[in-house]
């Protein structure tokens, strides 16, 4: 992967000699990359923090994302994060290329499912994959639940993605989703079910116990507050305030 990124960076540097940063910045601007982001790269280039070739290599994944009709916000956010953390351009390009790769995989998966490529689902999938959710888990989810109503599908998708990022066993997630989809009890608030999991774990509860309580509540189309009560704590523990409180 690192070798591939190095190759891409080298190729983009060579390309930069022909087209130059100015042309690439114009292309990015036409594509809808924010003027603030382009201005930031221009100022880094002007002050010598970035070479023209590095600036081009940073804009390339954004232009590629634009060509693929992917939402640019995710890519711009990663670029801004890299700049804020003073990460070298090579590492930022590698992270952007990985994100691009994951978004392409997500788009292909949605197209193959026959349900069309809804932008919201694409973002949840692309971001989830970038953050470590296994491709196979998403493939299983899309194949099993892809024929449900878009809102229900999206709620389950986000719930599953966050649970996976928290290390929740996919087998347990599926057991809850099966009940939730069957009884239509998967209301939008369930996408943040992971908050219950995090609090319950702090209290020493096992993931099996959490999934069992959630399944029972979903059968009755209950709420997250009902799960909290089942697990022996109150909804006050899930005030939704900052976790750094």
């Amino acid at each position, binding site marked *: 992967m690192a070798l591939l990124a190095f190759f891409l960076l080298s190729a983009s540097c060579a390309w930069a000699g022909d087209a130059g940063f100015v042309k690439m910045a114009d292309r990015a601007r036409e594509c809808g990359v924010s003027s603030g982001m382009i201005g930031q790269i221009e100022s880094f280039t002007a002050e010598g923090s970035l070479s023209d070739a590095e600036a081009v290599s940073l804009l390339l994944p954004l232009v590629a994302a634009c060509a693929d009709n992917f939402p640019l916000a995710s890519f711009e956010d990663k670029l801004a*994060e890299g700049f804020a953390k*003073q990460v070298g351009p090579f590492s930022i390009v590698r992270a952007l290329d*990985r994100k691009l790769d994951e978004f392409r995989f997500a788009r292909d998966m949605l197209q193959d499912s026959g349900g069309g490529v809804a932008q919201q689902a694409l973002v949840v999938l692309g971001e989830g994959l970038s953050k470590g959710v296994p491709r196979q888990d998403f493939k299983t989810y899309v194949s099993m639940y892809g024929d449900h109503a878009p809102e229900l599908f999206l709620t389950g998708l986000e719930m599953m993605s966050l649970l996976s990022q928290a290390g929740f066993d996919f087998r347990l997630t599926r057991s809850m989703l099966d009940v939730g989809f069957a009884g239509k009890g998967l209301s939008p608030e369930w996408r943040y079910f992971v*908050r219950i999991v995090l*609090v319950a774990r702090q209290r020493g509860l096992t993931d099996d116990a959490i999934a069992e309580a959630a399944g029972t509540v979903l059968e009755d189309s209950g*709420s*997250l507050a009902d799960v909290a009560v089942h697990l022996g704590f109150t*909804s006050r523990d899930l005030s939704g305030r900052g*976790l*750094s409180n």
Partner: protein
Amino acid sequence: MTDDREKRRLDNTIMEGLRSMPEVDPPKGFSARVMENLEPKRPSAWTRFRLWLTEPRSVTFTPVRMIPVFAAAMVLLVLGFYAMDTNDSGNGMRMSTIRFVLNDSGMNARTVAVIGSFNSWQAHDAAMRFDDATGAWVLEAQLPPGDHEYMFLVDGQKLMADPLAQMTRDDGFGNRNSIVFVNGTYEQAL
């Protein structure tokens, strides 16, 4: 002396002449025409404004006609309270106040900021204040619903994950971002 005597004599002659003149009535309507042609004195703008303010007025209304006015006023009042209560971000998203806290714990930091996906990772609008009472750096920020990644930026250089965060993620750059979940409107019951 001779001059004075002559002037007095002349004055007496003129006064005697005036007294002996015949009395003649003014033409008919003379007074009215004179008064019509006199320009009335226009008060200054300030005086007119002061008179307008201080002049008493009487207002008459019927209760039936006032009902729509009261109804409109009540609607505006309710909408105003609702707008204040929802703390809308301007794009229809309900914002929540999130309190970030970082204990200094001997770091002796000069500045701390929260950088994250909710502020485009920009430190300039996210500086924390040091609370002497608790010895901690504190920031209250307005965040839209969703899961947000963030880190603390200490002294403008050092990155720190939130030790109190319940969840973290690999940022792809060798650090771990802390995660904060913010309620959506439908989760207010929680």
